[in-house]
């Protein structure tokens, strides 16, 4: 009985999409999953998570700089997604909405944890928790790479939150300025300003590190 209701809702949603001018080919797999999940299909929601989990957890790690926090943030993000799934229009940009939720969750979590990313990253490097996906196999080169990662983490940690969010989304996640503006809820002009400022500070930080290291 319950299954029939779900199926009916799913069919209804698909029919509604057709009536609104979208053909079967135009309905993306993500939109199908969203429609099914909205109708209460948990398998579809699980599939949505599988499709987006890497993206969410990576963003969370870049913003929080800690694996455990990143996992917690991803978990909370998907819970919020499920909670507000009924409000999502399957035809619209699900990815942007997901990013927005993830960014808000990371902001909340960062406020809660009162722990600097610099310390987290250093701790991860020291404890060996930080694993590079395609890092060099040589131990010495590997250590140098890990140190470089920690320096970048520190450079990001020096930025104000808004600038950090903007540059991570733009330069590391590869989103357009307009997309970043939508996710952060600000104008493209503001985002450009934040990105410009962030890039200048990152360059200055890197120059400072290079000077400390010396010519060698």
């Amino acid at each position: 009985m319950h299954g029939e209701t779900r199926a009916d809702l799913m069919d209804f949603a698909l029919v509604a999409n057709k009536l609104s001018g979208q053909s079967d080919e135009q309905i993306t797999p993500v939109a199908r999953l969203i429609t099914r999940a909205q109708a209460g299909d948990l398998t579809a929601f699980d599939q949505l998570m599988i499709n987006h989990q890497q993206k969410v957890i990576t963003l969370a790690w870049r913003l929080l700089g800690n694996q455990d926090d990143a996992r917690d943030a991803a978990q909370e993000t998907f819970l919020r997604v499920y909670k507000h799934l009924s409000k999502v229009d399957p035809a619209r940009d699900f990815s942007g909405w997901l990013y927005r939720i993830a960014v808000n969750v990371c902001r909340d979590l960062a406020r809660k944890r009162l722990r600097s990313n610099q310390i987290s990253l250093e701790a991860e490097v020291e404890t060996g928790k930080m694993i590079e996906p395609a890092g060099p196999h040589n131990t010495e080169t590997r250590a140098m790479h890990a140190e470089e990662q920690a320096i970048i983490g520190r450079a990001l940690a020096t930025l104000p939150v808004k600038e950090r969010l903007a540059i991570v989304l733009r330069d590391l996640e590869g989103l357009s300025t307009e997309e970043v503006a939508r996710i952060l809820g600000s104008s493209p002009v503001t985002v450009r300003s934040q990105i410009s400022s962030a890039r200048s500070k990152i360059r200055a930080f890197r120059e400072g590190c290079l000077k400390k290291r010396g010519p060698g």
Partner: protein
Amino acid sequence: MNCTQIERLIPLYIGGDLPAEDETTVRHHLASCEQCEMIACEFAESRDWLRGFTPPQFDQPVLDEMRERVMTKIARVQTPPSLLDLLLPTWKIRIVLAGSTALVLLIAGLLVFLNSQRLTEQHPITSKGRTPDPEAKQKQHPSDITKTEPNPQTQQQKRNANHQSPRRPATTEIKLPIINLSQIDQFLDIGRREITFPFNSEIAVNLDLNENEDREMLKIEIQTADPNIRIIWFVPVENTSSAFKH
């Protein structure tokens, strides 16, 4: 545009964030200005350096566990919460401690009260405020018993006597006022023999009504001036009534 203005645009230029017109202007300037070209190279290197910030490879079990937790929480949300689930989040350790302490005190108080009630029923101490049984009052002959002023000494003796006497739950004890020894002769005539009292003093007389189902008995208790001597006498109620009628 001069170099200062171009320098401001370089951070956005290297990321392709400038409008087409500004981008062309900067490109033309960089082609002609070596210093600005060097700055642009530094920005580009810095951006590439930042993009080398690669996230760790999250293991599949970690991701599976994360998804599993999400699904568990969703399942919990979907099932209606029990009363305990609703109450638990609001419970705090202080409230729980205060509540349990109050409950223990309440139970202890209740037990003490019940125990004291039970003891009062088992030991009917003839206190000042106690009112005599109306039925027993009716059985008393008003002319036979004369009220006297309560003597503190004799009352103390009376209390001692009551505490020393054996308990008989089936007997209703009626406390009678103290009567004069000179008036007891008529009262003692109920019995079949005369009792001579060596004391010319007040004595306490207690009448106990035995509520035996078979036969009602009247208990006559005489406390002499000597606290160690007490006379107890049981008489059938009918006899007593007739004796009182004399």
